[in-house]
């Protein structure tokens, strides 16, 4: 499904279904060098269980036009504009990694538009090591391999029959990087994560229910790195699953059940 968002064609996976004004809407926001397909199972389930799904490709990523957002704030403004373009008054936001910061900032900027906030594989501050920042800019293929290794915690993941997650996450990152020949979305995304400094202030402005959904073996955003932010939201629900940073693929059912229970 394509929308015109501030003059740029924007792709959202909707599970093959048109938007139904009678249904609630959930927006899935991917992380750095990913696209909508990292939510392949969860987004399809919600699309077939009473929800409108907008699993977006962020601007400048794969099927979406426009400049890639250079900051979390810029990306949050885009999500609000996407809701406007889709004619969606209110939505639940589910973000992974970089996407979790975007969801958080969006919920703070437009609290009346957000019904639920799910922060998946999150950390605050989301510090990116100089090695990864530099590698994303100067040696992206090697750095993709490093990030793929850091993002996985098991050699026998259950995503789907025959899927090899190390290979598929590397292939997706290469595809997303190649999809934008004007800008290095890898480095821009990492820098936006690293620069974001408004997390605690943003969380203080969020009135809706909040879920922290974390991977206990996550080496990119370890659960301890989300602890201080979670403590600032005493009402927040924290769920930890046995997985690494790629928890939607390594623990697909557990992630689905946590989101399903949270969005009930």
């Amino acid at each position, binding site marked *: 499904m394509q929308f015109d968002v501030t003059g740029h064609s924007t792709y959202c*996976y909707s599970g*093959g279904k048109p938007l139904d004004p009678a249904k609630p809407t959930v927006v899935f926001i991917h992380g750095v060098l990913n*696209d*909508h*397909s990292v939510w*392949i*199972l969860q987004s*399809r*389930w919600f699309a*077939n269980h009473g929800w409108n799904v907008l699993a977006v490709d962020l601007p400048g990523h*794969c099927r979406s036009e426009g400049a890639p957002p250079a900051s979390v704030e810029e990306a949050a403004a885009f999500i609000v504009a996407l809701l406007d373009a889709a004619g969606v008054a209110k939505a639940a936001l589910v973000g992974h990694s970089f996407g979790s910061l975007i969801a958080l900032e969006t919920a703070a900027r437009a609290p009346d538009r957000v019904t639920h906030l799910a922060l998946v594989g999150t950390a605050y501050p989301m510090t990116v090591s100089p090695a990864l920042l530099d590698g994303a800019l100067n040696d992206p293929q090697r750095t993709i*391999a*490093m990030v*793929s*290794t850091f993002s*996985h*915690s*098991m*050699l*026998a993941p*259950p*995503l*789907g*029959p*025959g*899927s*090899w997650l*190390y*290979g*598929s996450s*590397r*292939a*997706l990152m*290469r*595809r*997303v990087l*190649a999809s934008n020949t004007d800008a290095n979305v890898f480095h821009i995304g990492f820098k936006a994560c690293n620069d974001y400094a408004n997390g605690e202030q943003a969380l203080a402005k969020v009135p809706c229910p909040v879920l922290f959904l974390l991977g206990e073996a996550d*080496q990119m955003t370890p659960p301890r790195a989300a602890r201080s932010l979670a403590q600032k939201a005493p009402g927040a629900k924290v769920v930890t699953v046995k997985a690494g940073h790629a928890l939607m693929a390594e623990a*697909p*059912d557990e992630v*689905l059940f946590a989101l399903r229970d949270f969005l009930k």
Partner: protein
Amino acid sequence: MSGYSDPGFDTLALHAGAAPDPATGARAVPIHLTTSFVFESSDHAAALFNLERAGHVYSRISNPTNAVLEQRVAALEGGIGAIATASGQAALHLSIATLMGAGSHIVASTALYGGSQNLLHYTMRRFGIDTTFVKPGDLDGWRAAIRPETKLLFGETVGNPGLDVLDIPAVSEIAHAAKVPLLVDSTLTSPYLIKPFDWGADLVYHSATKFLSGHGTVIGGVVVDGGSFDWERSGKFAELTEAYDGFHNMVFSEESTVGAFLLRARREGLRDFGASMSPHTAWLILQGIETLPLRMERHIGNTQKVVEFLAAHPFVSRVGHPLLESHPSHALANKLLRHGAKGAGAVFSFDLKGNREQGKKFIEALKLFSHLANVGDCRSLVIHPASTTHFRMSDEALAGAGISQGTIRLSIGLEDPADLIDDLKRALKAAEKAGA
């Protein structure tokens, strides 16, 4: 796992796709000999059928034991996933049937396994898929053969019968310029000797019957997707990029940005053609793969010794292995294969300085080498094409196929190399005497 890089090849050969069984603690991969899997609820059943949740429904489509094999081969190849099939031929057919229909066209190497040649030259033509064959090293020929309806380029890493090494970087460049993928049969090399994705191939398949299994026990195949080919950007594969009303109106390339081929191959090809692998077979192939690195080292080490022996023997007129500098693929083998030309595998042919009868005598005099129609066994194998696979052909036709009356094909196993050489020495003497 932790660290800066993925586990190495030998580790993946043992662990990729497998963990101790959560229900029983079994360390080895269990054999899930069951046709079907109980649903937790009606909702669970519907979610599995509609690809909303991961899991298994029916063993023609997927099975937990097969899934381990699929992940393991995908890991060893550096791919995104794989599908296990009933045979290598089934893997080739599944690849073709997923990518095209009647009116499509393939450009293939002439240096193919006879079964693949039959499938393309006779059988697929009956279903409206045409193939143009070009010599693997003729890069202009590959380019010239491409038509608007071409959907696939196809060759073998190391081709039959002369071990022509496919110039995967060059041929994949030609394929990609034409917006089509390159499919490579890597049976004779296995992922241990070459990883075709690293050189530009898009899809790889194996007859797992051969070196992956390694013990001459089961028939099986596996096709792996490298996840690098952009089906949408190509614009030539509506099968993957447009809604398919045969499966929930799914647009496979939207569902999975890099995994569209495997999605359709499993959800349509395995479902409808049904050429799936038995879980028992998958388990035996997994057993083989656990020792693949060790076996391949021994296979090619033994082969080197046998090639050196034959090349120096006065009753041998030609040895067709890229180890020899005179072989046309010597330089390319050194460039592309692990261990260089030594990595061109353990299956090769050589010519006796004799007639058809002397070739038969040679075979009959062998004691360790088994006379049969297979390759890639841990035991050494031999066949005499002029008296078996090609026995109906005239001497002229044989010559046209690059086979002489004295051509012998060997598949070198894991025995003591000195014993193999003694066996060959004895048989060569017997053949020589038969011509006296």
